[in-house]
């Protein structure tokens, strides 16, 4: 049993839980190009993701978030916000819950289902961006 984590989740989850990156402070001030919401409070997890897009290159220039939820919900949104910066909209759109869980060094199976919702919020944000920019042909294509 080498490097058995002493905490309930992996060291990476702990790191992002303790020091969450890219938390959205003030939405009005941030003026996102796209915004998405996933989950709901009743189920215990809800996420908002907002993005800024480098329109010329079609890549995500910046990403911020807010999360109501448990440690893995917070950590998974945080790590996703780091991972998507610089990615093309298309590549970001295809990130899955499994990808996020893998990036976090693994999560218990039931946690992947209930708390990893960042990719859904991100897709909603990208769809929102498409809609705002008249690119409706692209929006919602991967539902």
């Amino acid at each position, binding site marked *: 049993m080498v490097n058995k984590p002493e905490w309930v989740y992996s060291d990476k989850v702990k790191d992002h839980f303790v020091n969450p990156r890219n938390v959205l402070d003030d939405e009005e001030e941030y003026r996102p190009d796209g915004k998405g919401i996933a989950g709901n409070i009743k189920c215990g997890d809800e996420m908002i993701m907002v993005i800024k897009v480098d329109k010329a290159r079609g890549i995500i220039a910046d990403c911020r978030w807010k999360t*109501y939820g448990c440690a893995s919900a917070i950590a998974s949104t945080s790590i996703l916000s780091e991972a998507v910066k610089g990615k093309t909209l298309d590549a970001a759109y295809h990130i899955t819950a499994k990808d996020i869980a893998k990036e976090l060094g693994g999560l*218990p199976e039931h946690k992947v289902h209930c708390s990893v919702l960042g990719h859904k919020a991100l897709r909603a944000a990208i769809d929102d961006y498409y809609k705002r920019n008249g690119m409706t042909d692209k929006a919602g294509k991967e539902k």
Partner: protein
Amino acid sequence: MKRKVYLDHNATTPLHPEVKKAMAEAMEAFGNPSSMHGFGRQARRLIDDARDKISSFIGGRPEDIVFVGSGSEANNTVLNLLYCTARRCEAPHTKRHRVITSQIEHPCILEAAGCLEARGIEVIYLPVDKYGKIDMAKYEEVMSEKTALVSVMMANNEIGTIQDIKKIGSIAHKYGALFHTDAVQAVGKIPVDVGDLGVDYLSLSAHKIYGPKGVGALYVSPGAPFCPFIRGGHQERGRRAGTENTTGIAGFGKAIEMRAKEMDIESRKLLSLKARLRAGIEKNIKDIEFNGHASDCLPGTLNVSFDAAEGEAILLYLDLEGIAVSTGSACSSGSLDPSHVLMATGASAELAHGSIRISMGRDNTEEEIDYTVEKLAFVIDKIRNMSTVAVKEDHGK
């Protein structure tokens, strides 16, 4: 060294130093308590001694106490002692096909009751009011000569609410039903007297009161029907088979002996710590709600919900500060449903997800409570800054 503050005594407690000593001594008595030789008799004496201590603390005769492996086993024993499938079983209560319990019982009662339902027994789960008190009108309404058994917990593990067990029991008896109370959270924290309460069965556990894990007991009143849950030996007067856990039982006896000495003083101390904690939270954190009953509550238990913050996150941030609490959030349970107890009190799912239980014990100090309030305020602030749920604006502070 990092500071450690243990505030999860309803989950389990550390061993009392006297219990540790008693257990270390009892480990020498390795003989089988059923053996007739000196080694066996030495172990037997320890068990008898523990039995005497427990019966003198909760009332009843020593022979009414059955040692079992846990509070959960005691509870399962009671729910399974009726409705034996053996044809020769003629216990009068088996002719009655209704069991009454409550919506806020420990899962071991609820799941055992679910098994009874699967066997065709009608189980009624009594609702509770917003403070967690049994709906007595509903209880009297469903109570009749059809009821075989009523099982209602004395004090709730999550919110600490204490039921009027004496009254609930007397109504059960008026209709000839048997009455059981799960007093695992009550014995050793508040006065419990089986004679005064008028119970037929009462479950208790050692590890909630500074005794060891893996030992519980069931009080069975004289003349109450009984059917063993674990068979295969004459131990415990044929009521619970299996070679006795001498070390654990001796520890249980010592824990009870220490409760007899310390419960009253500790209870006053815990009430004062709780008042301090409650005032500290109210003063430093906005948008909160206390759950449970204000006065009919275990002295060391405080359950509180925070708007816009999720319980597992609160628990784990506090853990990083060395503070141990528990939560009614779904996340901690591995299911998607938040605390069934808080939901039964009519709390919203959000309130239940955002709840934490702080349960204090004999070693906690005022300084620890102040430290906890300080860290809790910091943690709630941190979580709310990340939350999708906006907390109500300063409402004219």
